[in-house]
Structures are given as C-alpha cells and as structure tokens.
C-alpha cells in the first residue's frame, strides 16, 4: 500500500497533490487537476486510502464535487447537491429578498468532511448559501440537513466577505450524533441529535461590528479546530479574535488579547500535540502577516501562554493565509503545513521547530490538508 504523506493543495487555479518522503524533507509536486477552477477544499478520506474529494468552484460552470480514487491521478465528477426547492428548476427564487438564502442558487462549495470511521460511506458537505448536506453513498447522492437548511432563523443570517459560507464541519469522535458547524457571518452551532436540531454556541464571542456586542448569532467565525486529545476542547479563530472553549462550545474565552491584534483566518490542532493550537495571526486591516515576516503562533492551553514558532528573519514578507490554509499531519512530532494567498507552501516536519518552503510557486492557495500515514 502506498503510505507516503501527501499535502493536498487547493488553489485559485486547480488542485495540486504534493508527495513527501518519510522524513518530510523532500516534496514532489503533482499530479495537478482542475486547472482553472477555484478549489476551496481538498480532503483525503482516511477510511479509504487513495480516495480524495475536492470542492471545485468553476467561474464558468458552477460548483461541483469531484472524487479521485488514486491519489489525484484522475478525478471524476460526482453528484452535487442542489439548493432546497431547486430540484424542479422553478424554486421560489426572489431577487428582492436577499436575506432568504434558501431561495438562492447553490453558489460555492466550501468544505467536505469525511464521516465517522464506522460509517465509511458517509461524508458531509458545507456550501454557500449556508447549506449542509450529507451523503451516505460516497457522493452518489446528497441529502439536505434540514435542521440547518430550513432553520427558522436563517432569514436573519448575513454573509461574510466570502459569502454565505458554511465552512467548518467538526464531528465528535465519541458520538456520531454530536456535530459542530461554523458559518460566516453567523457563528458556531452544535447538534446532539445527528443534525435534526441545532443550537447557536457563541457565548463569549464579541461582535464589534454589530450594535449588540454579545448576540446569540452574528459572529463572523473564520475557522475552528477540535483538540483530538480532548474533543470537548475547541480553538477558534474569529473575525474578532482567538478563543478557546473547554465545554463543547458552551462558553468561549478569548485568548488572543496578549497578541494585541488577534485577527486571522485559520487555526489547526494536531493529534501528537494535545492542548496546543496553531494560529497565523494577521494584521486586521491589511489581512497579511503584519510583522513583516511569516509567523505561526502556538497556543499552549495547559500553561495558557503563547509562543512564536519562527525567527523574524526566517521568511520576510507580508503573507495572507485563508481559513483552510493551515493543516497538521498525524505523525509524532506533528508536521505543520501553511499555504499562502501568494502561493508559498511552508512546511515544518517537527511541530514548528524548523521550517522550509516547498520549492514550487503555486497559484494563490485557498486550502491545505494532509493525507497522512498514522504515527508508529
């Protein structure tokens, strides 16, 4: 079995699979696919080694889900879910009702999440406008999750700059009925019943851009990571700062204050780094690394303190990193991978102790994920 580590890179212009050696030092770029399309997410299905899924958003032909069964050598379009009410091609579409996104056509696909290990045919898909779908046949068909797609308050939900995106899907590894989602600019929600009902979970997250500072919803969550060692703990990069929750998102505590400007888009955790989270802090106005160099900040949740993982002179420049722009692998020590909007791919094979650039200039990177062999 081919057990090489692979970085899956989704860019403004296609999908790149980057294979590494066992030391995570040498990287080979290719195969490349979906040339010309915006790739918002590419993910490996850990239950079927070699299976990859891509959220392909074509400016010309619209959104589509594609699957590869051979590590990205070839891809095939599979079913793409439709907006509720759209199947008959004559939905109750209403131009004058911009706050009724359920009546809008399916726009971009944002995130594909493989389901639990004991449901090998199940995957989840998050899309714009604020839509969540589940397949139980590996993408041959998609069922809408009406608890979100028909949520009684969705008419109040606003978009972020990227649209009405449902971009974060997290599963509790202990209980398949418990899931979490993140939407811009709505916030985080939790279900305890497999998706039938959802409750907002944003307590403690400020909304400086709204008149009400701590509303139930309206937060512009950018991304959330679950702590693999403690699935009750979550790390959140919000438009309004960096947060942690230790109680399944019941309450959030801001941790980014010591950093000053704690804006950013991405956050990741790693199986071999329990109690730690990795953030790329950006200047809140320029939306690039504001210190004049590439930097990753590590949050130590046990000691409750921050640490910078790079020297200031390592990679000078102003780098943008988007919400899916950071990933970790399953190895020990964990690898950390960061893709930038200007096409650099940074790799640390040792939890941030040393860093290198993959020697290839990619198109602007939307998403980085890792297909990783398990730690030995």
């Amino acid at each position, binding site marked *: 079995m081919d057990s090489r580590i692979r970085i899956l890179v989704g860019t403004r212009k296609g999908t790149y699979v980057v294979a590494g050696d066992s030391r995570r030092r040498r990287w080979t770029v290719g195969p490349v696919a979906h040339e*010309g399309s915006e790739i918002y997410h590419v993910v490996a299905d850990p239950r079927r080694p070699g299976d990859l899924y891509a959220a392909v958003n074509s*400016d*010309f*032909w*619209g959104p589509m889900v594609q699957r590869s069964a051979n590590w990205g050598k070839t891809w095939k*379009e599979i079913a*793409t879910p*439709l*907006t509720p009410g*759209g*199947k008959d*091609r*004559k*939905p109750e*579409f209403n131009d004058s009702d911009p706050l009724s996104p359920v009546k809008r*056509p*399916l726009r971009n696909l944002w995130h594909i999440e493989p389901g639990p290990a004991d449901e090998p045919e199940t995957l989840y898909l998050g899309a714009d406008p604020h839509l969540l779908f589940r397949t139980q046949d590996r993408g041959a068909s998609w069922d809408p999750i009406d608890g979100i797609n028909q949520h009684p308050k969705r008419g109040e939900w606003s978009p972020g700059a990227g649209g009405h995106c449902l971009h974060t899907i997290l599963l509790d590894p202990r209980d398949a009925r418990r899931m979490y989602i993140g939407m811009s600019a709505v916030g985080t929600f939790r279900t305890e019943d497999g998706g039938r009902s959802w409750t907002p979970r944003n307590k403690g997250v400020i909304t400086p851009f709204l008149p009400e500072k701590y509303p139930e919803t309206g937060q512009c969550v950018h991304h959330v990571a679950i702590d693999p060692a403690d699935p009750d703990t979550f790390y959140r990069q919000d438009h309004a700062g960096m947060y942690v929750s230790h109680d399944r998102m019941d309450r959030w505590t801001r941790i980014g204050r010591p950093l000053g400007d704690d804006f950013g888009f991405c956050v990741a955790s790693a199986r071999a780094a329990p109690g730690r989270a990795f953030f790329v802090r950006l200047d809140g106005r320029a939306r690039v690394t504001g210190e004049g160099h590439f930097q990753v900040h590590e949050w130590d949740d046990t000691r409750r303190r921050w640490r910078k993982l790079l020297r200031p002179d390592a990679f000078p420049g102003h780098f943008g990193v988007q919400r899916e722009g950071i990933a970790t692998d399953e190895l020990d020590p964990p690898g950390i991978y960061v893709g930038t909007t200007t096409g650099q791919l940074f790799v640390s094979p040792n939890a941030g102790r040393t860093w290198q650039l993959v020697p290839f200039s990619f198109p602007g990177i939307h998403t980085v994920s890792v297909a990783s062999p398990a730690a030995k």
Partner: protein
Amino acid sequence: MTAPSGARDSAGPSLEVHLDSWLREFGPRQREEVAADTVEHLLDTLESRYPRLKFKLRDETGRLRRYVRVFVDGEDVSGTTGVGTPLAGARTIDILHSIAGG
C-alpha cells in the same frame, strides 16, 4: 450527429447546435441537431441527452450562468431575451463561454 430524441424533441424547428471546446467535456463533441421552440427548451433537451450539462449552463433557478453565452444565428441573446428567446426561424445555436477571468 443526431442523438436519441428527448421528451419534447418533436416541438419547434430543427436547429444545429455547436458547443465550444470547453463545453464538449460535458456535452456533444460534434454539432448536434435539436428541435426546440425556445432557448430554454433547447437547453432542456440538450441536458436530457447529456446529463453532465445540467447546472453547467444554468443554475438551479434556470438562469444562464454568468459566463455562458448563447448565440442565435450569431446574435448574443444571453443578456437580453435569455432562455426565453423564441427560436422560430432560427437555424444555428452557438453556446460559448465568455472571455473572462484572470
């Protein structure tokens, strides 16, 4: 080449349809004969013959996608009469993608 008829193929005049090279990934690789009385009818018929075309030319609301151009006898109707354009008397349809992107 004429493919098997769709449900409403018998209605309207017979038209010669050309797709550009990008669209041939999803639809007919050569010119296609289609009988249709409107652009919407024509697209319905094409999609029934080539299911991968569905939602590539139009979104779920039935609107032409932003960068899809439909020419009826050389005239671009995408931004005017759109999918409701009648095809009585028309002979050729070109479906192209517009020059866009960067």
